[in-house]
């Protein structure tokens, strides 16, 4: 039975029902509404010993950050977490004792890739949000020992830049606007995307969340990730996921304009015949 992990974006969410938490680590994570220091994470783990607790450092690391990164990982390693989520393979050379979960956003899409990482000390993998149900299940089937994590609700991450793309624009045109996030739309398109900045740079998320509630029993993954980042009033959705109440699918979709993402849709890449 897969466990549901709640990505914590607000301290109140620590009171929400779930099988465990994913906590963003201060300075080293992206797309978290709330971040924590290792000592704060230690307290949360102690208070929630019955729950699975993962700490996330889900971004690439610059060379000049390595010392602090390594120190932070070592502190986290002492806590006894259920896993440390890393976005940079640098962490694989630090001989950590806590299970390492790799989250390279969109780079881990095949069984052999995941087998490679398993053979190199990785214990779990967060799968990209743009692969199909079959691919997701085949990966698990072919890598039974590797823990797999699949986002089942929330705004999917699409891109990350080191640049401050919105601030640059505002500065260039001498405009002012603030807020947690912005939205972008193409002319003649109803599709909306969220763009936001943080300490790292700029991230783009899909404007509509993924909702896989009626796929839960078909997805073969060890952990389902539920992420309410930038969404409001979603606790009832989390309740529905915890109870596998797939009958609420349409209501969730109507409320959040959600969809199933790529779970049933393959991407294409050859659009020209070069013969």
């Amino acid at each position, binding site marked *: 039975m897969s466990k549901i992990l709640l990505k914590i974006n607000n301290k109140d969410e620590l009171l929400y029902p779930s099988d465990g938490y994913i906590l963003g680590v201060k300075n080293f994570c992206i797309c978290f509404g709330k971040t924590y220091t290792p000592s704060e994470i230690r307290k949360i783990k102690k208070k929630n010993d019955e729950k699975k607790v993962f700490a996330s450092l889900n971004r690439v690391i*610059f060379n000049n950050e390595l010392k602090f990164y390594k120190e932070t990982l070592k502190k986290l390693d002492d806590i006894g977490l259920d896993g440390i989520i890393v976005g940079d393979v640098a962490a694989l050379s630090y001989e950590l004792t806590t299970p390492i979960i790799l989250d390279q956003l969109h780079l881990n899409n095949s069984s052999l890739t995941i087998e490679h990482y398993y053979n190199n000390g990785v214990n779990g993998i967060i799968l990209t949000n743009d692969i199909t149900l079959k691919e997701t299940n085949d990966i698990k089937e072919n890598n039974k020992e590797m823990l797999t994590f699949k986002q089942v609700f929330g705004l999917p991450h699409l891109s990350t830049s080191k640049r401050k*793309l919105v601030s640059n*624009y505002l500065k260039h045109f001498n405009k002012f606007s603030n807020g947690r996030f*912005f*939205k972008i739309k193409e002319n003649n398109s109803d599709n909306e995307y969220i763009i936001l900045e943080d300490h790292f740079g700029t991230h783009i998320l899909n404007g509509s969340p993924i909702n896989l509630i009626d796929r839960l029993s078909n997805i073969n993954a060890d952990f389902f990730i539920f992420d309410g980042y930038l969404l409001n009033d979603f606790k009832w959705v989390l309740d529905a996921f915890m109870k596998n109440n797939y009958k609420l699918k349409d209501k969730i979709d109507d409320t959040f304009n959600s969809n199933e993402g790529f779970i049933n849709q393959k991407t294409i890449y050859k659009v020209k015949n070069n013969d």
Partner: protein
Amino acid sequence: MIKKPELLAPAGDLEKLKWAIDYGANAVYLGGENYSLRANAKNFSINDIKKGVNYAHDHNAKVYVTVNIVFHDEDTINLGQYLKKLQDIGVDAIIFSDPLVIDVAKKYAPNLCLHLSTQASVLNKDACKYYIKNGVERIVLARECSKKDIKNIIDETNVEVECFIHGAMCTNISGRCILSNYFTNRDANRGGCCQVCRFNFNLYDQNNNVISDNSNFSIAPKDLSLVKYIKEMIDIGVTSFKLEGRMRSIYYIATIVNVYRRLIDMYCNKKENDAYIKKAIKILYRCANRDVAPQFFNKKPNEKEQYYGNRQEDSNQDFLGIVIGYDNDNKELVIEQRNFFKKGDKVNIFAPAIDDYSLTIEKVKDEKGNIIDVARHPKQIVRIPCEKKIPINAIMRVNFLD
């Protein structure tokens, strides 16, 4: 003793491969029909790769083949056999991003040299160490690395480092972007990227108030150019200087290879020439008609390194023709036309073995020697007077330098 870096050029097809090598590239990189991030380019068949390798090796150059997609299960089926073929052909290295390639290569093509693509977004020495431990011999660093990062990585790991020095670049961390997948269903990490980062958008605040004017919000970066930093790149020990542009024209390839070849040779021979650097900047700008910046090399890019929804490049008609012969008796260049030119035009001719040569076209003759007003037809063969003997495959362009 200065170690001369490799100049690595893109080869979109066999013809471009030859132009790149003839104009001074020490190595070229190309994509096969599968597994390459330019899925919609005219990629190389195995037979073409073989021809390319033979041509390169005959000219003391190397060939690297990109196997740099992020694989899905369905893509892995014939990979082992493909890598073995590349090994048997004698390619000098493959450039990959997905680590499964390491394992498949070890099994099927253990002698293949492995270069890690920039798509793996390696930014630090400890990530380098992971790949070195796994048998990788060269790392193409992420384009977000600064000079200090690059130097420290080289000093601490001693790995061969390849850096992009010129061309278009992703706005986002390479590999960690699937905008194309969501916008168009085209898989960015399997070669289908539709370059959403070049699109124009309307920008809204979170309350849906429009901020932008006429869709002038874009996340497009200006192109990368380290033309002013070649000496520093040599000094810190970068092994390979990489040029972007597998989809570009032979004119673009010949131009940028020619410029960077001269710059590298100039610095390595300790013959710095400020006038040539100024000229090089002008040539490189005209060649793509896009603004350039050193991007992350010397500082974090700011608002000046981003485009804002305006037209980012103009069509370029500088490429006038290719020299296909020289008539010693009549002192005439035989030119295969590429763009319109006429009597009185000021032109400039460049080639690997000669200094740039400028002249004013005194007259234009057709193939039979008849005087004509203009050369207006693509691939038309014409003759123009020229006192200096110019080698074949020299390129004639608009003289925008004098």
